[in-house]
């Protein structure tokens, strides 16, 4: 095809030395490069934190194991959780938002390109600072290593008396840095989506991904300050002798929990909604139907955003709130199921009667639908306060949130990677390796996390570094660990695929999926300026209008 001979952007031109390429990455303010750098860095941290999870699972595979020392185990689950949430999840949110939002709204870049680069560098240095704690935390005192207080760092364990050395300080400061990065990136994405839309793209003609990114980034703006404020208070406690969380001077450890979960619960929606966003773009294209109930999808997302700010204390049923509090937070938790259910039905409605193509992105989306449904159902179970009292801090909870974050978030993101990789690189990911990745990961996921519910029901608490034989947990834990190995192999397949297809993949062309949103109207990979001339749209599916001038969408909208 003639159009594929349009000059490819800087990265691909022959004769550029690797030092120049690195320099290009360091000084770039291009939203596409930064978006890919976000996603690439996130995948790097995903591998590191995934290896920690693997080590944790090896330790727990058999009773009385001595593979990991107890304190190493504590550091691993803390670093695993913190990395996965802040360095993987949040970075993927920023990365997908950065790469896709300007392309989808027909803009040439983000509203504030330099601020965008600033956000990325804050993020990566925050992440490196967190890992530097292994070397830096002992400090002059000679105590401490990486943080070992869990990703929610409950007081008073984080107090000066219980957390000596600087491990908790590294946790605080690195997350404050990444939070600054996330905040400026959120401001940037919102300003871009609101102010830089191309002609004709009214709010209700935006692709759903852009809508969902706006909601997510508003949630980041509202939720992250709660964490930052609590962390600043903790710093005051640790360094200036403050008493915010010092129970011996009248402070309260429960206040930390309230502040943390005021951030922490919206955070899990912040992670899952970008997966919703990917699924909402991919399912229509591979079902060959427009999305079912677009305005309702928008409304449901806004509802999730609003309700998510008033459910935080369902993480705290066991601290002994008044029963009014328990009932309020149980009811608000159930309320979230309504908009989420609407979304699931709308995706099914989109697929219903469609000519479904089972390409890799769609496979991940279908698995996502089933798994996210089950994750939601166990979430409902945990929302029942008395049930929660039985199972809080058990492996049932661990299984539940890994079901949402792996089975939901990660599957949605994998779908997105297979879907947009051809756009970003110009080459398709290899289908055979992709299928291997899909099946190994899906099977491994179910072997691990379906099984993990049961030791929880049998009373196995989370965060124990080992357990005695004879409690009925041995076989279940062994199966769980085997599944983890399968998932590790699957991620290896993805990594090989990403690297190999970069140079050797099949040429994708501009629009390999016959899709309808604006990013597919430009070349793959897009030039630095995205669009040669500013596009103009008249409906939600501008490329449909272009390909079917005899029956365009705008006649019916």
């Amino acid at each position, binding site marked *: 095809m003639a159009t*594929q001979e349009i000059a490819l952007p800087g990265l691909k031109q022959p004769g550029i030395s690797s030092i120049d390429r690195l320099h290009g990455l360091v000084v770039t303010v291009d939203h596409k490069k930064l978006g890919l750098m976000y996603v690439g860095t996130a995948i790097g941290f995903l591998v590191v934190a995934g290896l920690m999870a693997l080590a944790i699972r090896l330790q727990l595979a058999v009773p009385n194991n001595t593979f990991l020392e107890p304190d190493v185990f504590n550091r691993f689950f803390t670093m695993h959780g913190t990395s996965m949430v802040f360095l993987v999840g949040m970075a993927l949110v920023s990365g997908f938002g950065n790469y896709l939002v300007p392309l989808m709204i027909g803009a040439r870049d983000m509203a504030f390109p330099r601020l965008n680069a600033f956000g990325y560098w804050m993020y990566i240095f925050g992440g490196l600072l967190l890992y530097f704690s292994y070397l830096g935390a002992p400090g002059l005192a000679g105590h401490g290593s990486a943080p070992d207080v869990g990703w929610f760092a409950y007081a008073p364990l984080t107090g000066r008396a219980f957390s000596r050395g600087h491990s908790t300080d590294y946790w605080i400061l690195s997350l404050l840095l990444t939070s600054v990065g996330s*905040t400026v990136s959120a401001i940037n994405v919102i*300003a871009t989506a609101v102010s830089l839309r191309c*002609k004709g793209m009214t709010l209700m003609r935006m692709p759903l991904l852009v809508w969902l990114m706006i909601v997510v980034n508003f949630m980041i703006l509202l939720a992250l300050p709660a964490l930052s404020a609590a962390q600043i208070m903790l710093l005051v406690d640790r360094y200036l002798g403050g008493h915010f969380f010092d129970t011996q001077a*009248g402070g309260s450890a429960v206040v930390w929990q309230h502040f943390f979960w005021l951030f922490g619960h919206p955070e899990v929606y912040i992670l899952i909604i970008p997966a919703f966003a990917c699924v909402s773009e991919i399912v229509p294209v591979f079902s060959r139907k427009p999305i079912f109930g677009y305005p309702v999808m928008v409304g449901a997302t806004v509802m999730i955003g609003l309700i998510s700010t008033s459910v935080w204390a369902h993480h705290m049923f066991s601290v002994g709130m008044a029963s009014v509090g328990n009932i309020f937070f149980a009811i608000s938790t159930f309320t979230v199921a309504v908009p989420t259910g609407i979304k699931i039905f709308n995706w099914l409605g989109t697929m219903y009667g469609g000519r479904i193509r089972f390409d890799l992105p769609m496979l991940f989306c279908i698995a996502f639908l089933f798994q996210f449904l089950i994750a939601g159902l166990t979430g409902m179970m945990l929302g029942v306060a008395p049930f929660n009292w039985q199972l809080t801090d058990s492996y049932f909870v661990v299984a539940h949130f890994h079901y949402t974050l792996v089975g939901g978030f990660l599957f949605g993101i994998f779908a997105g990677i297979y879907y947009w990789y051809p756009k970003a690189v110009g080459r398709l990911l290899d289908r055979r390796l992709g299928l291997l990745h899909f099946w190994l990961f899906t099977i491994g996921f179910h072997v691990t996390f379906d099984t993990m519910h049961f030791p929880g029901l049998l009373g196995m608490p989370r965060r124990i570094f080992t357990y005695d034989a004879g409690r009925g947990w041995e076989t279940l834990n062994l199966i769980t660990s085997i599944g983890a190995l399968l998932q590790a192999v699957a991620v290896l397949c993805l990594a090989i695929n990403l690297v190999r297809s970069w140079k050797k993949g099949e040429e994708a062309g501009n629009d390999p999926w016959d899709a309808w949103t604006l990013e597919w*109207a430009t070349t793959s990979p897009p030039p630095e300026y995205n669009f040669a001339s500013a596009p103009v749209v008249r409906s939600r599916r501008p490329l449909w209008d272009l390909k079917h001038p005899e029956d365009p969408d705008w006649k019916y909208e």
Partner: protein
Amino acid sequence: MTNEASLPKTFEASDWKLPSARKVALICLILTETGLFSIFVAGYVFYLGKSLTGPTPREVLDLPVLSTICLLSSSVTITLAERAFSRDRVGRFKMFWLLTIVLAAIFLASTAAEWRRLIYQKGLTISTNLFGTTFYSLVGLHASHVIVGMSLLLLVFIFSLRGFVTIMHRERLQMISWYWHFVDAVWVVVFTVVYVIGR
């Protein structure tokens, strides 16, 4: 056909107007800052009266009347400066802009004097009791925002002395003034919570 790099320009509406990205971004910044202050205010209110030892707010706090008047009137002067700027009356703009800086400086100076009095005469430090911890954190967080705002104001003033500030920068000045109004509004909340309700 499917790989066209541009789309046909057949759009009827000629007036396609979107809000300014700067304004949207600043509103977002104010939103997230509001979240930050809310948590500190909530912490302050929650810990009111929970200190195990003295001194209490009633014993040591005086109403900061002068600094409040200065900070609130600085919102008026910055508006006047902005108005003068948009009418191209440069001298008047510089005068009101400088006045805003002076008022902010008086506010910071009287906060400093208040803290000095509290620390050296009343023996209240950030580690004395819960009141000290929450008081210095909340008021200090606000004061640090005043310092940031004042630095921005000073920067603009220095640039305007050298003639670098032109009508092109109108929206940027407007953004600084929005931020400044926000810092003032936060002070109204802090004043009410700390010095009126909490005393």
